[in-house]
Protein backbone atom coordinates (compact mmCIF):
# COMPACT_ATOMS: atom_id res chain seq x y z
CA UNK A 1 0.00 0.00 0.00
CA UNK A 2 1.45 3.30 -1.03
CA UNK A 3 0.64 6.72 0.30
CA UNK A 4 -0.38 7.66 -3.23
CA UNK A 5 -3.12 4.96 -3.22
CA UNK A 6 -4.43 6.29 0.05
CA UNK A 7 -4.40 9.82 -1.34
CA UNK A 8 -6.55 8.75 -4.30
CA UNK A 9 -8.94 6.93 -1.95
CA UNK A 10 -9.21 9.97 0.32
CA UNK A 11 -10.00 12.14 -2.69
CA UNK A 12 -12.75 9.73 -3.78
CA UNK A 13 -14.17 9.81 -0.25
CA UNK A 14 -14.09 13.64 -0.10
CA UNK A 15 -12.21 13.58 3.15
CA UNK A 16 -9.93 16.52 2.45
CA UNK A 17 -7.00 14.96 4.31
CA UNK A 18 -3.65 16.71 4.41
CA UNK A 19 -0.37 14.90 3.69
CA UNK A 20 0.21 14.78 7.44
CA UNK A 21 -3.25 13.30 8.13
CA UNK A 22 -2.72 10.70 5.43
CA UNK A 23 0.67 9.77 6.81
CA UNK A 24 -0.72 9.22 10.26
CA UNK A 25 -3.73 7.26 8.94
CA UNK A 26 -1.61 4.94 6.80
CA UNK A 27 -0.40 2.50 9.50
CA UNK A 28 -3.93 1.86 10.84
CA UNK A 29 -5.22 1.58 7.28
CA UNK A 30 -2.56 -0.95 6.32
CA UNK A 31 -3.13 -2.90 9.51
CA UNK A 32 -6.81 -3.35 8.67
CA UNK A 33 -6.10 -4.30 5.06
CA UNK A 34 -3.60 -6.86 6.30
CA UNK A 35 -6.29 -8.30 8.53
CA UNK A 36 -8.75 -8.36 5.65
CA UNK A 37 -6.22 -10.52 3.81
CA UNK A 38 -7.11 -13.35 6.21
CA UNK A 39 -10.18 -13.81 4.03
CA UNK A 40 -7.92 -15.13 1.28
CA UNK A 41 -7.25 -18.24 3.32
CA UNK A 42 -10.93 -19.11 2.99
CA UNK A 43 -10.22 -19.80 -0.68
CA UNK A 44 -8.38 -22.92 0.35
CA UNK A 45 -10.23 -23.95 3.48
CA UNK A 46 -13.76 -23.43 2.22
CA UNK A 47 -14.07 -25.14 -1.10
CA UNK A 48 -16.86 -23.58 -3.03
CA UNK A 49 -16.79 -20.16 -1.45
CA UNK A 50 -14.60 -18.37 -3.92
CA UNK A 51 -14.37 -17.85 -7.60
CA UNK A 52 -17.21 -17.38 -9.99
CA UNK A 53 -17.17 -21.02 -11.09
CA UNK A 54 -17.92 -22.19 -7.55
CA UNK A 55 -20.53 -19.69 -6.56
CA UNK A 56 -23.43 -21.98 -7.52
CA UNK A 57 -22.15 -24.59 -5.09
CA UNK A 58 -22.31 -22.02 -2.31
CA UNK A 59 -25.82 -21.09 -3.28
CA UNK A 60 -26.88 -24.72 -3.30
CA UNK A 61 -25.51 -25.23 0.20
CA UNK A 62 -27.24 -22.13 1.46
CA UNK A 63 -30.54 -22.87 -0.16
CA UNK A 64 -30.45 -26.35 1.32
CA UNK A 65 -29.70 -25.07 4.81
CA UNK A 66 -32.29 -22.32 4.60
CA UNK A 67 -34.80 -24.79 3.28
CA UNK A 68 -34.10 -27.01 6.27
CA UNK A 69 -34.44 -24.02 8.51
CA UNK A 70 -37.72 -22.99 6.95
CA UNK A 71 -39.11 -26.47 7.46
CA UNK A 72 -38.38 -26.11 11.11
CA UNK A 73 -41.40 -24.79 13.03
CA UNK A 74 -39.11 -22.80 15.28
CA UNK A 75 -37.62 -20.78 12.49
CA UNK A 76 -40.41 -20.86 9.98
CA UNK A 77 -41.24 -17.36 8.92
CA UNK A 78 -43.10 -16.34 5.86
CA UNK A 79 -40.80 -13.54 5.00
CA UNK A 80 -37.35 -14.06 6.45
CA UNK A 81 -34.58 -15.21 4.13
CA UNK A 82 -36.65 -17.17 1.73
CA UNK A 83 -34.48 -19.31 -0.53
CA UNK A 84 -35.12 -17.03 -3.46
CA UNK A 85 -33.85 -14.02 -1.60
CA UNK A 86 -30.85 -15.60 0.02
CA UNK A 87 -28.11 -15.85 -2.54
CA UNK A 88 -30.32 -14.52 -5.35
CA UNK A 89 -30.94 -18.11 -6.23
CA UNK A 90 -33.42 -18.94 -8.92
CA UNK A 91 -34.63 -22.50 -9.18
CA UNK A 92 -35.40 -22.07 -12.83
CA UNK A 93 -32.14 -22.58 -14.77
CA UNK A 94 -33.81 -21.37 -17.93
CA UNK A 95 -34.57 -18.00 -16.35
CA UNK A 96 -30.99 -17.76 -15.07
CA UNK A 97 -29.58 -18.42 -18.53
CA UNK A 98 -31.95 -15.96 -20.17
CA UNK A 99 -30.89 -13.26 -17.76
CA UNK A 100 -27.22 -14.00 -18.29
CA UNK A 101 -27.57 -14.12 -22.05
CA UNK A 102 -29.33 -10.78 -22.11
CA UNK A 103 -26.71 -9.07 -19.92
CA UNK A 104 -24.74 -6.28 -21.52
CA UNK A 105 -21.51 -7.45 -19.94
CA UNK A 106 -20.70 -10.75 -18.23
CA UNK A 107 -17.98 -12.21 -16.10
CA UNK A 108 -18.45 -15.97 -15.93
CA UNK A 109 -21.85 -16.53 -14.35
CA UNK A 110 -22.09 -12.93 -13.12
CA UNK A 111 -23.69 -9.93 -14.73
CA UNK A 112 -21.30 -7.00 -14.58
CA UNK A 113 -22.88 -3.88 -13.12
CA UNK A 114 -21.17 -0.55 -13.83
CA UNK A 115 -19.12 0.70 -10.93
CA UNK A 116 -21.07 3.49 -9.30
CA UNK A 117 -17.97 5.06 -7.74
Amino acid sequence: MKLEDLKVTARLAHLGLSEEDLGSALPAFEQMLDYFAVMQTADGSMAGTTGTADIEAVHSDLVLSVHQCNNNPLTNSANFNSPNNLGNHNDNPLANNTLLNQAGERNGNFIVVPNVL
Partner: protein
Amino acid sequence: MSRSVDKDGFPAYVSAWEARIGAFLEIRKPELLSAQGESSLGPGGASGPVKGLPFAVKDNIAVEGFGLTCGSKLLADFRATYTATAVKRLESAGAAVIGKTNMDEFGMGSSTDNSALKRTNNPWDTSRVAGGSSGGSAAAVAAGLVPFALGSDTGGSVRQPAAFCGVVGLKPTYGAVSRFGLVAYASSLESIGVLADSVGRARDVFRIIQGEDPLDQTTVAARVVHGTANQKAGGKKVLAVLDPASLAQAVSAAVRGARGLDAADGGAESAHRDAAEEANLINLLEEEVLAGFSKAVEGYKALGYEVREVSIPSLAYSVPVYYTIATAEASANLARFDGIRYGKRPEWAENPEDLIDKTRAMGFGSEVKLRILLGTFVLRSGFQDRYYLRAQRLRKHITGEFLSLFTGPEAPSALLMPVFPTRAFGRGDRGPALSSFAQKAADIFTCPANLAGLPAIAFPASVEGGLPVGVQLLGAPFTEELLCDIAAEYEADHPIPHPEGYQSFWR
Protein backbone atom coordinates in the same frame (compact mmCIF):
# COMPACT_ATOMS: atom_id res chain seq x y z
CA MET B 1 -43.87 -3.16 37.08
CA SER B 2 -44.62 0.32 38.31
CA ARG B 3 -43.49 3.84 37.68
CA SER B 4 -41.03 5.71 39.87
CA VAL B 5 -41.70 4.97 43.53
CA ASP B 6 -39.48 7.67 45.00
CA LYS B 7 -39.64 10.68 42.72
CA ASP B 8 -38.46 13.04 45.44
CA GLY B 9 -35.04 11.48 45.60
CA PHE B 10 -34.75 10.86 41.90
CA PRO B 11 -33.44 14.27 40.67
CA ALA B 12 -30.57 14.30 43.14
CA TYR B 13 -29.81 10.68 42.36
CA VAL B 14 -29.66 11.41 38.61
CA SER B 15 -27.47 14.51 39.07
CA ALA B 16 -25.01 12.70 41.29
CA TRP B 17 -24.60 9.72 38.99
CA GLU B 18 -24.54 11.78 35.82
CA ALA B 19 -21.71 13.92 37.19
CA ARG B 20 -19.68 10.72 37.65
CA ILE B 21 -20.49 8.76 34.51
CA GLY B 22 -21.57 11.27 31.83
CA ALA B 23 -24.09 8.96 30.19
CA PHE B 24 -26.26 11.66 28.63
CA LEU B 25 -25.59 14.16 25.86
CA GLU B 26 -28.92 15.82 26.56
CA ILE B 27 -31.30 15.28 29.45
CA ARG B 28 -34.51 16.83 30.65
CA LYS B 29 -33.96 18.57 33.95
CA PRO B 30 -34.31 16.04 36.79
CA GLU B 31 -36.43 18.58 38.68
CA LEU B 32 -38.87 18.48 35.81
CA LEU B 33 -38.97 14.70 36.04
CA SER B 34 -39.95 14.73 39.69
CA ALA B 35 -42.54 17.42 39.14
CA GLN B 36 -44.24 15.47 36.38
CA GLY B 37 -47.46 13.77 37.07
CA GLU B 38 -48.29 10.43 35.58
CA SER B 39 -50.19 11.98 32.72
CA SER B 40 -47.22 13.96 31.50
CA LEU B 41 -45.07 10.84 31.35
CA GLY B 42 -46.64 9.78 28.10
CA PRO B 43 -50.23 9.36 26.97
CA GLY B 44 -50.33 5.56 26.91
CA GLY B 45 -53.22 3.27 27.56
CA ALA B 46 -54.77 2.51 30.89
CA SER B 47 -51.97 0.16 31.83
CA GLY B 48 -49.02 -1.62 30.36
CA PRO B 49 -45.51 -2.69 31.27
CA VAL B 50 -43.81 0.60 30.32
CA LYS B 51 -46.54 3.10 31.20
CA GLY B 52 -45.14 5.96 33.24
CA LEU B 53 -41.54 4.83 32.83
CA PRO B 54 -38.79 7.13 31.60
CA PHE B 55 -36.30 5.83 29.07
CA ALA B 56 -33.18 7.00 27.29
CA VAL B 57 -32.37 6.89 23.60
CA LYS B 58 -28.99 6.57 21.91
CA ASP B 59 -28.14 9.75 20.07
CA ASN B 60 -28.30 8.20 16.61
CA ILE B 61 -32.05 7.57 16.96
CA ALA B 62 -34.35 10.46 16.14
CA VAL B 63 -36.66 11.94 18.78
CA GLU B 64 -38.44 15.10 17.69
CA GLY B 65 -37.32 18.09 19.73
CA PHE B 66 -34.09 16.48 20.87
CA GLY B 67 -30.65 16.68 19.30
CA LEU B 68 -29.39 13.99 16.94
CA THR B 69 -25.63 14.34 17.08
CA CYS B 70 -24.49 10.72 16.59
CA GLY B 71 -21.66 11.71 18.92
CA SER B 72 -20.14 13.82 16.15
CA LYS B 73 -18.99 17.43 15.97
CA LEU B 74 -20.42 17.48 12.47
CA LEU B 75 -23.97 17.18 13.83
CA ALA B 76 -23.42 18.97 17.15
CA ASP B 77 -26.22 21.49 16.43
CA PHE B 78 -28.58 19.20 14.56
CA ARG B 79 -32.11 18.73 15.95
CA ALA B 80 -34.38 15.87 14.95
CA THR B 81 -37.51 16.88 13.08
CA TYR B 82 -39.35 13.60 13.51
CA THR B 83 -39.43 10.60 15.83
CA ALA B 84 -38.20 7.08 15.11
CA THR B 85 -40.86 4.38 14.89
CA ALA B 86 -39.44 2.41 17.84
CA VAL B 87 -39.55 5.50 20.06
CA LYS B 88 -43.05 6.39 18.89
CA ARG B 89 -44.30 2.93 19.82
CA LEU B 90 -42.87 3.24 23.31
CA GLU B 91 -44.36 6.71 23.71
CA SER B 92 -47.72 5.37 22.60
CA ALA B 93 -47.40 2.72 25.29
CA GLY B 94 -46.97 5.43 27.92
CA ALA B 95 -43.19 5.68 28.32
CA ALA B 96 -41.35 9.01 28.00
CA VAL B 97 -37.94 9.93 26.65
CA ILE B 98 -35.86 11.67 29.31
CA GLY B 99 -32.69 12.13 27.32
CA LYS B 100 -30.25 11.21 24.57
CA THR B 101 -27.23 9.13 25.43
CA ASN B 102 -23.58 9.33 24.46
CA MET B 103 -22.10 7.01 21.86
CA ASP B 104 -19.05 6.39 19.71
CA GLU B 105 -19.18 8.73 16.74
CA PHE B 106 -21.69 7.28 14.23
CA GLY B 107 -21.57 4.00 16.17
CA MET B 108 -17.96 3.33 15.29
CA GLY B 109 -16.16 2.00 18.34
CA SER B 110 -16.26 -0.28 21.36
CA SER B 111 -15.67 2.16 24.20
CA THR B 112 -17.77 5.31 23.65
CA ASP B 113 -14.44 7.15 23.94
CA ASN B 114 -14.76 7.81 20.19
CA SER B 115 -17.51 10.32 20.96
CA ALA B 116 -16.40 13.77 19.87
CA LEU B 117 -18.66 15.38 22.47
CA LYS B 118 -17.97 13.90 25.89
CA ARG B 119 -16.59 10.95 27.81
CA THR B 120 -18.75 8.28 29.40
CA ASN B 121 -17.46 6.24 32.34
CA ASN B 122 -18.41 2.78 33.52
CA PRO B 123 -20.65 2.92 36.64
CA TRP B 124 -18.75 -0.04 38.14
CA ASP B 125 -15.39 1.72 37.90
CA THR B 126 -15.28 5.24 36.51
CA SER B 127 -11.69 4.82 35.34
CA ARG B 128 -12.94 2.26 32.83
CA VAL B 129 -14.93 2.57 29.63
CA ALA B 130 -18.63 1.79 29.40
CA GLY B 131 -18.20 -0.15 26.17
CA GLY B 132 -19.70 0.87 22.90
CA SER B 133 -20.99 2.10 20.82
CA SER B 134 -24.19 2.30 22.94
CA GLY B 135 -22.11 3.04 26.05
CA GLY B 136 -24.24 5.94 27.27
CA SER B 137 -27.42 3.86 27.16
CA ALA B 138 -25.78 0.94 28.99
CA ALA B 139 -24.24 3.19 31.66
CA ALA B 140 -27.57 4.98 32.26
CA VAL B 141 -29.38 1.66 32.80
CA ALA B 142 -26.59 0.20 34.96
CA ALA B 143 -26.62 3.25 37.23
CA GLY B 144 -30.41 3.10 37.59
CA LEU B 145 -31.03 6.43 35.84
CA VAL B 146 -33.53 4.73 33.55
CA PRO B 147 -35.07 1.25 33.64
CA PHE B 148 -34.38 0.73 29.95
CA ALA B 149 -32.84 2.47 26.96
CA LEU B 150 -32.67 2.07 23.22
CA GLY B 151 -29.38 1.47 21.45
CA SER B 152 -28.29 0.22 18.08
CA ASP B 153 -26.29 -2.92 17.34
CA THR B 154 -24.23 -3.06 14.14
CA GLY B 155 -21.49 -5.43 15.27
CA GLY B 156 -22.22 -5.81 18.98
CA SER B 157 -22.91 -2.22 20.01
CA VAL B 158 -25.78 -3.18 22.32
CA ARG B 159 -24.44 -6.46 23.69
CA GLN B 160 -20.84 -5.41 24.39
CA PRO B 161 -21.67 -2.32 26.51
CA ALA B 162 -24.39 -4.38 28.22
CA ALA B 163 -21.71 -6.91 29.18
CA PHE B 164 -19.31 -4.17 30.32
CA CYS B 165 -21.94 -2.47 32.49
CA GLY B 166 -23.76 -5.55 33.80
CA VAL B 167 -27.16 -5.07 32.19
CA VAL B 168 -29.30 -6.97 29.68
CA GLY B 169 -28.78 -6.20 25.97
CA LEU B 170 -31.14 -7.53 23.32
CA LYS B 171 -30.23 -7.39 19.63
CA PRO B 172 -33.33 -8.37 17.66
CA THR B 173 -33.48 -10.33 14.41
CA TYR B 174 -32.70 -8.14 11.40
CA GLY B 175 -36.07 -6.83 10.26
CA ALA B 176 -37.89 -7.43 13.54
CA VAL B 177 -37.65 -3.77 14.63
CA SER B 178 -38.08 -0.78 12.34
CA ARG B 179 -34.92 1.21 11.61
CA PHE B 180 -36.92 4.25 10.56
CA GLY B 181 -35.35 7.16 12.42
CA LEU B 182 -32.01 5.41 12.99
CA VAL B 183 -29.11 7.25 11.36
CA ALA B 184 -27.68 4.67 8.98
CA TYR B 185 -24.14 3.36 9.42
CA ALA B 186 -24.19 -0.16 7.93
CA SER B 187 -27.73 -0.78 6.79
CA SER B 188 -27.55 -4.52 6.16
CA LEU B 189 -26.08 -5.21 9.59
CA GLU B 190 -27.67 -2.89 12.14
CA SER B 191 -30.76 -3.16 14.34
CA ILE B 192 -32.26 -1.00 17.03
CA GLY B 193 -31.85 -2.92 20.28
CA VAL B 194 -32.83 -2.76 23.94
CA LEU B 195 -30.73 -2.26 27.08
CA ALA B 196 -32.64 -3.04 30.25
CA ASP B 197 -32.31 -3.73 33.96
CA SER B 198 -33.86 -7.21 33.65
CA VAL B 199 -34.61 -9.83 31.03
CA GLY B 200 -38.33 -9.34 31.59
CA ARG B 201 -38.05 -5.61 30.94
CA ALA B 202 -36.05 -6.19 27.75
CA ARG B 203 -38.76 -8.59 26.58
CA ASP B 204 -41.55 -6.10 27.39
CA VAL B 205 -39.82 -3.35 25.42
CA PHE B 206 -39.06 -5.65 22.49
CA ARG B 207 -42.70 -6.71 22.28
CA ILE B 208 -43.72 -3.07 21.97
CA ILE B 209 -41.15 -1.93 19.40
CA GLN B 210 -41.11 -5.01 17.12
CA GLY B 211 -43.29 -5.45 14.07
CA GLU B 212 -43.81 -4.39 10.51
CA ASP B 213 -43.45 -0.71 9.65
CA PRO B 214 -44.42 0.74 6.26
CA LEU B 215 -41.64 3.30 6.76
CA ASP B 216 -38.98 0.57 6.77
CA GLN B 217 -39.23 -1.88 3.90
CA THR B 218 -36.86 -4.34 5.60
CA THR B 219 -39.24 -4.98 8.49
CA VAL B 220 -41.31 -8.10 8.45
CA ALA B 221 -44.47 -9.19 10.18
CA ALA B 222 -42.69 -11.87 12.12
CA ARG B 223 -44.46 -14.70 13.77
CA VAL B 224 -43.26 -14.34 17.31
CA VAL B 225 -41.89 -17.67 18.41
CA HIS B 226 -42.67 -18.39 22.03
CA GLY B 227 -40.09 -20.18 24.02
CA THR B 228 -40.99 -22.85 26.48
CA ALA B 229 -43.63 -24.39 24.27
CA ASN B 230 -41.07 -24.74 21.54
CA GLN B 231 -38.16 -26.40 23.23
CA LYS B 232 -36.34 -28.29 20.54
CA ALA B 233 -34.33 -31.48 20.43
CA GLY B 234 -37.29 -33.67 21.14
CA GLY B 235 -38.41 -31.65 24.13
CA LYS B 236 -34.98 -31.76 25.77
CA LYS B 237 -33.35 -28.55 26.91
CA VAL B 238 -30.25 -28.30 24.77
CA LEU B 239 -27.79 -25.44 24.47
CA ALA B 240 -24.93 -25.34 22.00
CA VAL B 241 -21.70 -23.89 23.31
CA LEU B 242 -18.94 -22.47 21.19
CA ASP B 243 -15.67 -23.41 22.79
CA PRO B 244 -13.66 -20.14 22.88
CA ALA B 245 -10.35 -22.04 22.77
CA SER B 246 -11.22 -23.87 19.57
CA LEU B 247 -12.37 -20.62 18.01
CA ALA B 248 -9.04 -19.00 18.90
CA GLN B 249 -7.31 -21.96 17.25
CA ALA B 250 -9.37 -21.50 14.10
CA VAL B 251 -8.46 -17.81 13.98
CA SER B 252 -4.85 -18.70 14.49
CA ALA B 253 -4.97 -21.17 11.60
CA ALA B 254 -6.51 -18.54 9.34
CA VAL B 255 -3.83 -16.08 10.32
CA ARG B 256 -1.07 -18.62 9.62
CA GLY B 257 -2.68 -19.27 6.26
CA ALA B 258 -2.60 -15.56 5.46
CA ARG B 259 1.09 -15.47 6.25
CA GLY B 260 1.68 -18.45 4.00
CA LEU B 261 -0.10 -16.68 1.17
CA ASP B 262 2.16 -13.70 1.70
CA ALA B 263 5.23 -15.81 1.37
CA ALA B 264 3.83 -17.52 -1.73
CA ASP B 265 3.20 -14.11 -3.25
CA GLY B 266 6.88 -13.36 -2.82
CA GLY B 267 6.17 -10.73 -0.20
CA ALA B 268 7.76 -10.56 3.19
CA GLU B 269 6.23 -13.14 5.49
CA SER B 270 5.96 -10.54 8.19
CA ALA B 271 3.64 -8.33 6.17
CA HIS B 272 0.58 -9.48 8.10
CA ARG B 273 2.33 -10.27 11.31
CA ASP B 274 1.47 -7.27 13.41
CA ALA B 275 -2.21 -7.28 12.56
CA ALA B 276 -2.51 -11.03 12.72
CA GLU B 277 -0.73 -11.49 15.99
CA GLU B 278 -2.62 -8.71 17.69
CA ALA B 279 -5.89 -10.21 16.45
CA ASN B 280 -4.78 -13.58 17.67
CA LEU B 281 -3.93 -12.34 21.13
CA ILE B 282 -7.16 -10.52 21.72
CA ASN B 283 -9.19 -13.59 20.84
CA LEU B 284 -7.82 -15.39 23.87
CA LEU B 285 -10.26 -14.76 26.69
CA GLU B 286 -9.21 -12.85 29.76
CA GLU B 287 -9.05 -15.20 32.74
CA GLU B 288 -12.02 -13.55 34.47
CA VAL B 289 -14.14 -13.69 31.31
CA LEU B 290 -13.39 -17.39 30.96
CA ALA B 291 -14.41 -17.85 34.61
CA GLY B 292 -17.70 -16.04 34.01
CA PHE B 293 -18.38 -18.01 30.86
CA SER B 294 -17.66 -21.31 32.66
CA LYS B 295 -20.06 -20.31 35.42
CA ALA B 296 -22.78 -19.72 32.83
CA VAL B 297 -22.16 -23.15 31.29
CA GLU B 298 -22.28 -24.80 34.71
CA GLY B 299 -25.33 -22.75 35.64
CA TYR B 300 -27.26 -24.01 32.63
CA LYS B 301 -26.19 -27.58 33.32
CA ALA B 302 -27.57 -27.16 36.84
CA LEU B 303 -30.82 -25.94 35.29
CA GLY B 304 -31.13 -29.23 33.44
CA TYR B 305 -29.73 -28.19 30.08
CA GLU B 306 -27.70 -30.56 27.98
CA VAL B 307 -24.72 -28.53 26.84
CA ARG B 308 -23.42 -29.54 23.44
CA GLU B 309 -20.10 -28.24 22.14
CA VAL B 310 -20.14 -27.09 18.53
CA SER B 311 -17.69 -25.53 16.13
CA ILE B 312 -18.45 -22.99 13.45
CA PRO B 313 -15.31 -22.91 11.30
CA SER B 314 -16.25 -19.89 9.22
CA LEU B 315 -16.30 -17.71 12.35
CA ALA B 316 -12.54 -17.41 12.00
CA TYR B 317 -13.26 -15.02 9.11
CA SER B 318 -16.13 -13.14 10.68
CA VAL B 319 -14.26 -10.00 11.79
CA PRO B 320 -12.55 -9.25 8.46
CA VAL B 321 -15.82 -10.02 6.66
CA TYR B 322 -17.74 -7.79 9.03
CA TYR B 323 -15.37 -4.83 8.75
CA THR B 324 -15.14 -5.11 4.98
CA ILE B 325 -18.92 -4.94 4.60
CA ALA B 326 -19.53 -2.44 7.41
CA THR B 327 -16.95 0.04 6.14
CA ALA B 328 -18.18 -0.32 2.56
CA GLU B 329 -21.73 0.49 3.65
CA ALA B 330 -20.51 3.30 5.90
CA SER B 331 -18.65 4.95 3.05
CA ALA B 332 -21.92 5.14 1.12
CA ASN B 333 -24.22 6.00 4.05
CA LEU B 334 -22.01 8.77 5.40
CA ALA B 335 -21.71 10.45 1.99
CA ARG B 336 -24.76 12.53 2.96
CA PHE B 337 -22.74 14.39 5.60
CA ASP B 338 -21.33 16.90 3.16
CA GLY B 339 -22.33 20.29 4.52
CA ILE B 340 -25.01 20.57 1.85
CA ARG B 341 -27.54 17.94 2.86
CA TYR B 342 -26.37 17.46 6.46
CA GLY B 343 -23.52 18.70 8.58
CA LYS B 344 -22.02 21.89 9.93
CA ARG B 345 -20.53 23.97 7.13
CA PRO B 346 -17.14 25.67 7.22
CA GLU B 347 -17.17 29.46 7.35
CA TRP B 348 -15.68 29.72 3.92
CA ALA B 349 -15.20 27.48 0.90
CA GLU B 350 -13.97 28.16 -2.61
CA ASN B 351 -16.49 25.93 -4.40
CA PRO B 352 -18.92 23.08 -3.64
CA GLU B 353 -16.16 20.45 -3.82
CA ASP B 354 -14.10 22.45 -1.36
CA LEU B 355 -17.16 22.86 0.88
CA ILE B 356 -17.69 19.10 1.03
CA ASP B 357 -14.02 18.34 1.67
CA LYS B 358 -13.74 20.96 4.42
CA THR B 359 -17.00 19.90 6.09
CA ARG B 360 -15.92 16.29 6.28
CA ALA B 361 -12.31 17.06 7.21
CA MET B 362 -13.44 19.27 10.11
CA GLY B 363 -16.48 17.27 11.19
CA PHE B 364 -15.45 13.62 11.24
CA GLY B 365 -13.17 12.12 13.88
CA SER B 366 -10.18 9.95 13.02
CA GLU B 367 -11.95 6.59 13.49
CA VAL B 368 -14.79 7.61 11.18
CA LYS B 369 -12.32 8.84 8.57
CA LEU B 370 -10.39 5.58 8.76
CA ARG B 371 -13.52 3.52 8.21
CA ILE B 372 -14.70 5.68 5.32
CA LEU B 373 -11.25 5.32 3.75
CA LEU B 374 -11.36 1.55 4.16
CA GLY B 375 -14.89 1.34 2.78
CA THR B 376 -14.05 3.48 -0.21
CA PHE B 377 -10.94 1.41 -0.87
CA VAL B 378 -12.65 -2.02 -0.74
CA LEU B 379 -15.27 -0.78 -3.21
CA ARG B 380 -12.74 0.71 -5.61
CA SER B 381 -12.59 -0.72 -9.08
CA GLY B 382 -9.81 -3.30 -9.11
CA PHE B 383 -10.13 -4.13 -5.42
CA GLN B 384 -13.78 -5.17 -5.20
CA ASP B 385 -13.11 -8.83 -6.02
CA ARG B 386 -10.36 -9.15 -3.47
CA TYR B 387 -12.26 -7.56 -0.60
CA TYR B 388 -15.94 -6.72 -0.93
CA LEU B 389 -17.15 -9.57 -3.13
CA ARG B 390 -15.09 -12.10 -1.22
CA ALA B 391 -16.56 -10.79 2.04
CA GLN B 392 -20.10 -11.09 0.68
CA ARG B 393 -19.49 -14.71 -0.32
CA LEU B 394 -18.08 -15.50 3.09
CA ARG B 395 -21.01 -13.78 4.77
CA LYS B 396 -23.34 -16.18 3.00
CA HIS B 397 -21.25 -19.08 4.18
CA ILE B 398 -21.32 -17.86 7.81
CA THR B 399 -25.09 -17.36 7.58
CA GLY B 400 -25.48 -20.85 6.18
CA GLU B 401 -23.49 -22.40 9.01
CA PHE B 402 -25.61 -20.68 11.63
CA LEU B 403 -28.89 -21.61 9.98
CA SER B 404 -27.70 -25.22 9.75
CA LEU B 405 -26.86 -25.18 13.44
CA PHE B 406 -30.43 -24.30 14.36
CA THR B 407 -32.00 -26.70 11.87
CA GLY B 408 -33.32 -30.19 12.44
CA PRO B 409 -35.19 -32.09 15.13
CA GLU B 410 -32.13 -32.39 17.38
CA ALA B 411 -31.08 -28.76 16.96
CA PRO B 412 -30.22 -26.79 20.11
CA SER B 413 -32.45 -23.97 21.31
CA ALA B 414 -29.62 -21.43 21.33
CA LEU B 415 -25.89 -20.98 21.16
CA LEU B 416 -24.10 -19.77 24.29
CA MET B 417 -21.04 -17.59 23.66
CA PRO B 418 -18.88 -15.03 25.42
CA VAL B 419 -19.59 -11.41 24.47
CA PHE B 420 -16.13 -9.86 24.50
CA PRO B 421 -12.70 -11.28 25.34
CA THR B 422 -12.16 -8.79 28.17
CA ARG B 423 -14.17 -7.10 30.90
CA ALA B 424 -14.54 -3.31 30.71
CA PHE B 425 -11.07 -2.07 29.90
CA GLY B 426 -9.36 0.94 31.39
CA ARG B 427 -7.76 4.01 29.89
CA GLY B 428 -4.12 4.84 29.52
CA ASP B 429 -2.47 8.22 29.10
CA ARG B 430 -3.22 8.19 25.38
CA GLY B 431 -6.71 6.75 25.30
CA PRO B 432 -8.30 3.32 25.84
CA ALA B 433 -5.98 0.59 27.10
CA LEU B 434 -7.10 -1.64 24.26
CA SER B 435 -5.84 -0.37 20.88
CA SER B 436 -8.31 0.64 18.22
CA PHE B 437 -7.32 -2.40 16.16
CA ALA B 438 -7.62 -4.80 19.10
CA GLN B 439 -11.10 -3.45 19.82
CA LYS B 440 -12.13 -4.33 16.27
CA ALA B 441 -10.54 -7.79 16.34
CA ALA B 442 -12.35 -8.47 19.61
CA ASP B 443 -15.74 -8.24 17.89
CA ILE B 444 -15.39 -11.90 16.93
CA PHE B 445 -18.12 -13.06 19.31
CA THR B 446 -20.62 -10.33 18.54
CA CYS B 447 -20.44 -9.54 14.82
CA PRO B 448 -21.57 -13.02 13.60
CA ALA B 449 -25.13 -12.34 14.80
CA ASN B 450 -25.16 -9.18 12.67
CA LEU B 451 -23.69 -10.91 9.63
CA ALA B 452 -26.33 -13.64 9.84
CA GLY B 453 -29.18 -11.33 10.95
CA LEU B 454 -29.86 -13.42 14.05
CA PRO B 455 -31.28 -12.38 17.43
CA ALA B 456 -29.00 -12.41 20.47
CA ILE B 457 -29.32 -11.48 24.11
CA ALA B 458 -26.44 -10.57 26.41
CA PHE B 459 -26.81 -10.77 30.19
CA PRO B 460 -24.52 -10.81 33.21
CA ALA B 461 -23.12 -14.24 34.05
CA SER B 462 -21.18 -13.20 37.13
CA VAL B 463 -19.06 -10.49 38.69
CA GLU B 464 -15.33 -11.21 38.54
CA GLY B 465 -12.77 -8.97 40.18
CA GLY B 466 -15.36 -6.28 40.82
CA LEU B 467 -16.52 -6.07 37.21
CA PRO B 468 -19.45 -7.77 35.49
CA VAL B 469 -18.87 -10.51 32.92
CA GLY B 470 -21.53 -10.97 30.27
CA VAL B 471 -22.45 -13.93 28.12
CA GLN B 472 -24.81 -14.08 25.16
CA LEU B 473 -27.33 -16.44 23.63
CA LEU B 474 -27.81 -16.52 19.85
CA GLY B 475 -30.84 -18.11 18.30
CA ALA B 476 -32.62 -18.83 15.04
CA PRO B 477 -34.41 -15.92 13.36
CA PHE B 478 -37.33 -14.53 15.37
CA THR B 479 -36.69 -16.57 18.51
CA GLU B 480 -36.32 -13.54 20.77
CA GLU B 481 -38.98 -14.90 23.10
CA LEU B 482 -37.19 -18.22 23.42
CA LEU B 483 -33.87 -16.47 24.08
CA CYS B 484 -35.54 -14.34 26.76
CA ASP B 485 -37.00 -17.47 28.38
CA ILE B 486 -33.60 -19.14 28.53
CA ALA B 487 -31.88 -15.99 29.81
CA ALA B 488 -34.62 -15.48 32.40
CA GLU B 489 -34.04 -18.99 33.75
CA TYR B 490 -30.43 -18.06 34.46
CA GLU B 491 -31.45 -14.65 35.85
CA ALA B 492 -33.80 -16.33 38.32
CA ASP B 493 -30.83 -18.18 39.85
CA HIS B 494 -28.29 -15.39 39.33
CA PRO B 495 -29.93 -11.98 39.87
CA ILE B 496 -28.62 -9.02 37.85
CA PRO B 497 -25.76 -7.44 39.84
CA HIS B 498 -25.56 -3.69 40.47
CA PRO B 499 -22.69 -1.24 41.00
CA GLU B 500 -22.13 0.33 44.39
CA GLY B 501 -24.53 3.20 45.04
CA TYR B 502 -27.22 1.78 42.76
CA GLN B 503 -30.77 2.45 43.79
CA SER B 504 -33.83 1.07 42.09
CA PHE B 505 -36.67 3.50 41.42
CA TRP B 506 -38.72 0.95 39.54
CA ARG B 507 -40.08 -2.50 40.21
